[in-house]
């Protein structure tokens, strides 16, 4: 039985959305800006009026205002109350829901421990770093054990390194607490890393709901394929586990080193923007480094797509226009490529 069901929901750009979110899963809502992602979770939270129906455990909640829906919401800007210290921020929802004071104190203590922020208890939001603020906001959102946790691009304001670290932590925490979560993002790789399932939303319509690998390898329809960015998808002939979470796979004439979760890798995908192109041979050892010749060049918006033949395989790379202009690339020219190992996604048979 789905934990949350949306039936023919309409609001702003969102039209006739039907979606089921299963108990304890992390569903990533993936789409470009203006696609209706935030509207969708605002509908679940009851923060906007809408047409259609939202059901929590098969019970309609359309008449319930936001403060009665028992949702946790992690906003894009985190929105910690600046006039309250960390403890008061975390305790806010509990007090609002009239928890007895000893229970509030015990729960806040538990969350400070869980999020490893006990040392920040008496600080105000302005005295916290981006990562610390994120933890406090998360603690506040889950404090009253909500029925669903809604996360609206909560890591978008952080630097890449902190975001990556917190992404892993967030996923682990969601698993550990067994909480149903809806995570909104426009970043495909973030979606693939985080999701149990991905719902691709474009122009207010849910285009595809599937496991991340399926979305990546088998995009349904042109709009999904366009959004995903036409990854290079290669069939694998063999897969050899190298340990340490990596494997060597053979795709036609290419031998690739890829991240590995233990299954038989059948396909790999890499986005064009994750292939580096260089006119000179990169110095030192290069994992997944190849040489090939350019077969076609085509400008697309602010980027330039370059098709390169490597052995029998044709790969598409993408470089920003301003970088392309500084390079001296032309059809037929020999170039060197590196496929970023950590950015390669594998479709393993146990998936």
């Amino acid at each position, binding site marked *: 039985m789905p934990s949350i069901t949306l039936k023919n929901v309409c609001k702003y750009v969102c039209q006739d959305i039907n979606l089921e979110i299963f108990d304890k899963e992390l569903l990533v809502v993936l789409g470009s800006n203006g696609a209706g992602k935030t509207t969708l979770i605002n509908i679940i939270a009851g923060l906007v009026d809408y047409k259609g129906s939202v059901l929590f455990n098969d019970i309609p909640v359309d008449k319930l205002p936001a*403060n009665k829906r028992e949702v946790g919401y992690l906003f894009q800007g985190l929105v910690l109350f600046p006039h309250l210290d960390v403890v008061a921020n975390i305790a806010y929802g509990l007090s609002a829901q009239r928890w007895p004071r000893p229970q509030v104190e015990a729960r806040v203590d538990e969350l400070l421990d869980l999020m490893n922020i006990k040392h920040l208890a008496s600080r105000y939001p302005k005295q916290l770093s981006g990562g610390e603020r994120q933890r406090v906001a998360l603690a506040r959102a889950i404090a009253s054990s909500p029925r669903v946790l809604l996360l609206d691009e909560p890591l978008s304001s952080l630097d890449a390194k902190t975001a990556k670290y917190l992404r892993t932590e967030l996923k682990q925490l969601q698993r550990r607490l067994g909480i149903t979560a809806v995570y909104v993002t426009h970043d495909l790789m973030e979606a693939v890393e985080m999701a149990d399932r991905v719902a691709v939303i474009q122009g207010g319509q849910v285009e595809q709901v599937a496991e991340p690998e399926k979305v990546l390898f088998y995009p349904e329809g042109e709009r999904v394929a366009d959004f995903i960015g036409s990854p290079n998808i290669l069939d694998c002939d063999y897969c050899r586990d190298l340990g340490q979470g990596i494997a060597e796979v053979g795709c036609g004439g290419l031998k690739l080193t890829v991240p590995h979760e233990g299954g038989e890798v059948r396909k790999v995908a890499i986005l064009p923007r994750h292939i580096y192109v260089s006119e000179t041979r990169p110095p030192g050892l290069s994992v997944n480094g190849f040489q090939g010749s350019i077969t076609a060049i085509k400008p697309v918006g602010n980027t330039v797509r370059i098709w390169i033949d490597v052995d029998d395989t044709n790969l598409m790379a993408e470089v920003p226009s301003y970088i392309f202009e500084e390079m001296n690339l032309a059809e037929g020219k020999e170039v060197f490529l590196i496929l970023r190992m950590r950015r390669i996604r594998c479709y393993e048979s146990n998936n």
Partner: protein
Amino acid sequence: MTILHKLRPGWGLLPVAVFLAIWEIVARLNLIPGQFFFPPFSAVVAEFYYLSASGVLGENFLSSLVRVLIGFCAGSVAGIVVGTIMGWKKVANRALNPIVSLFYPIPTLGWIPLLMLWIGINEMLPITLIFICSFFPVLYNTVTGIKNVDSDYIKAARTLGASDGKILTTVVMPLALPNIFTGLRLEAGMAWRVIIAAEMVAIPTGIGALLMKAESLIRIDIIIVCLIVLAVMCLTFEKFFEYLEARLTAKWR
């Protein structure tokens, strides 16, 4: 800590001391003709002492202070209450804003003739003037403060289970405090300016009335004493709200 550091807090008083010294010298040397019109600072101090000891200054000061406190407190509380309702409820804002916009531009002293006829010349007249003087600016600052609160804070509080009342009192009002205090601080000083004007025009007691009596007796020293009291009170009231604002908001702003 160096001597310079120790002295630094007192440096602000240095220009005042220099000014007073120049004043004393200029008056003593009769550099400005007519000592009547320019008494030395020491004469003003002596008069201050005399007026204080005789109780004249205290009595008039107390009359003005009570009027300012009652009018200012009532006006500010009313301004905050109405401003909160207007800032929080769109319907109230739509209904009241045209009326408030109509009355706000009227200079406070412009009300005196009308209020003299409506209320009469009694204690309520200056109190009502101070009320009007405080009410509108505090109201506007409260409305602005509440409207400026980022709607995401309200949404966050709502998803956390807070009712509208709880959101207003625990999120919106605290976040609107800086704006409300701006109104209170400015109007605290303004209340003193208005009370002096009202007492000069219509009321026979208070610092303003004492000023008018001194003028008719050509007692420049008393006039200066009254002006100094006025300046000190304006400053004290403004600083009090500055201090209160810092106490309540400095930690998180």
